[in-house]
């Protein structure tokens, strides 16, 4: 079943086209990977889907409803949550309070929000850091916290923007498990990731952006064999091959 679809989505900055007429479709329960060289427009696409940028053209349908250019808090209310490439923690709040901000998206009162928040902190494995001021956390823990925060809003679709960037190999595999666990819990995932091995292993399908346009789409195996993708990535193609 189709959960989200974007049709001919376009974004320009000062006349330069950052994302050009991209079509995108995500099925319920899927993990869709989004890759592309730096500057391909991945984060711009995310920002349009989540209401941070106004699209200059095209349409976004979520659960059959037009959510194009709604405000980000409205989009969150509809069940679409995101994390940020550069983490944006509420530094002066504790880990629990950080997640509670997300939990209040659906909780009716303070104790309920605390309960939901505690649940998702445990879910990402941070329950022992509840009272810690977030600015004291390591980057790995901050990324997990961002996931917990986004999950606490109760989304059906979660957009993950390079949640593995800057993590140690151990942490990467932990986050990979986490992503799978998120899907098991019925949340659909769209993720941008530079760590190819992780992305290829997790994704059901992969979409490749290049110069703001869709270059290819398919299963990880198909993408790896696609000569256009290899060309776009040049050096990185070995990484792809190595994984397979």
């Amino acid at each position, binding site marked *: 079943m189709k959960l989200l679809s974007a049709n001919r989505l376009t974004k320009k900055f000062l006349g330069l086209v950052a994302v050009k007429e991209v079509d995108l479709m995500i099925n319920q329960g899927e993990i869709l990977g989004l890759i592309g060289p730096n500057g391909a427009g991945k984060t711009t696409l995310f920002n349009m889907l989540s209401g*941070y940028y106004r699209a200059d053209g095209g349409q976004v349908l979520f659960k059959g409803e037009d959510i194009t250019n709604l405000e*980000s808090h409205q989009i969150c209310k509809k069940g679409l949550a995101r994390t940020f490439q550069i983490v944006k923690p*509420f530094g002066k709040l504790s880990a*629990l309070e950080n997640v509670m*901000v*997300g939990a209040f998206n659906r909780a009716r009162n303070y104790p309920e929000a605390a309960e939901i928040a505690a649940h998702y902190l445990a879910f990402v494995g941070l329950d022992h850091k509840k009272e810690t001021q977030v600015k004291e956390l390591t980057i790995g823990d901050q990324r997990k916290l961002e996931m917990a925060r986004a999950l606490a809003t109760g989304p059906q679709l979660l957009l993950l923007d390079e949640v593995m960037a800057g993590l140690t190999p151990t942490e990467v595999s932990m986050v990979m498990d986490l992503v799978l666990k998120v899907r098991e819990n019925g949340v659909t995932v769209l993720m941008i990731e530079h760590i190819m091995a992780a992305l290829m292993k997790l994704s059901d399908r992969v979409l490749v952006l290049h110069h703001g346009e869709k270059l290819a789409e398919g299963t990880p195996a198909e993408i790896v064999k696609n000569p256009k993708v290899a060309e776009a990535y040049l050096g990185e193609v070995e990484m792809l091959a190595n994984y397979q």
Partner: protein
Amino acid sequence: MARTKKGGSVAKSKAMLGWALPVIIILLVLPWFVNSYLLNLLIMVAYGAYLSQCWNVMSGYAGQFSFGHAAFFGLGAYTSSLLFVDAGFSPWLGMIAGALVAGLIGLIIGYLSFRYKLKGHYFALATLAFAEILRAIFTNTPFFKGAMGILIPISSKSTMFQFSKKVYYFYVIFALLVLLTVLLRYISRTRLGLYFVAIRENEDAAAALGVNVFRYKLAALAISASLTALAGTFYAQYFSYIDPNLVFGSEVSINAIIPAIIGGVGTVWGPILGSLVLTPISELTGTLLANYSGMNLMVYGFILIIVIIFLPEGVMGWIQNRRTQYKVKQDKSALARKEGKIHETPLS
């Protein structure tokens, strides 16, 4: 797990109550036994703390740095005074009317500023400009009595917010301060308070988590503006005279900012602590060096410079940071002991 945290904070607030109650009782009795000079000092401390606490709601908690709180203060002072002088309404009612007017103007200012996404310096300058606009309007409009200002007729009737004894003015401003502080402590444990801080810490992240940033910023501004207006009415009744420069001038805005900065921005006790430190110093230098006007402001400036450089998060921030550092150290040494690597830390 959530319950233990909540239990903890209830215990903490009970301890706080046990500590605050005697202080409140002492402060209720004390004013009867001090001379007029000290009584005035007590009133000014409470007044300074209240004004700064109002600013703290919007600029400390919700992070929208205002340099124009004089706008709301002046609206409160003028609304109640005009209603009193021209229409005979009790300033008690006028105070509420003033809060409504200031809240409404606050909403308009906020709507314009936040709609056009003013932030940081630009927002601060815009609030300053709005206060100056109000000053210009009140200075030049005969209906508002122009630059001459308003002299409040003395009646000593408590129903008219006037008292034969100064001590009752203390009770009024002290009650306002206590109520606001309790309210703020309460808010800081609700969705509203959490959202305020989230917006201050990172607007984008808050919006991504479903927080209607625009609406909550407006709420912070409106609440802060209404509360500030109450201080304006109190000022008018206590000093019996207002004019546009006195109540819309930037000195009022500065007085609203500095105690919170000294004591600790975005903390419940910061403005109170700040006023406790600053007001006596300012009043003392004012009396001791009465021949040199402005000495108190010079001291203000000096303290402000020192605090910004050495205690950038104010006294409360400094205390809290010390506490966390201590805790982290303790945690580390506990961990070290657990792992069998005991070193004799010269901590305790």
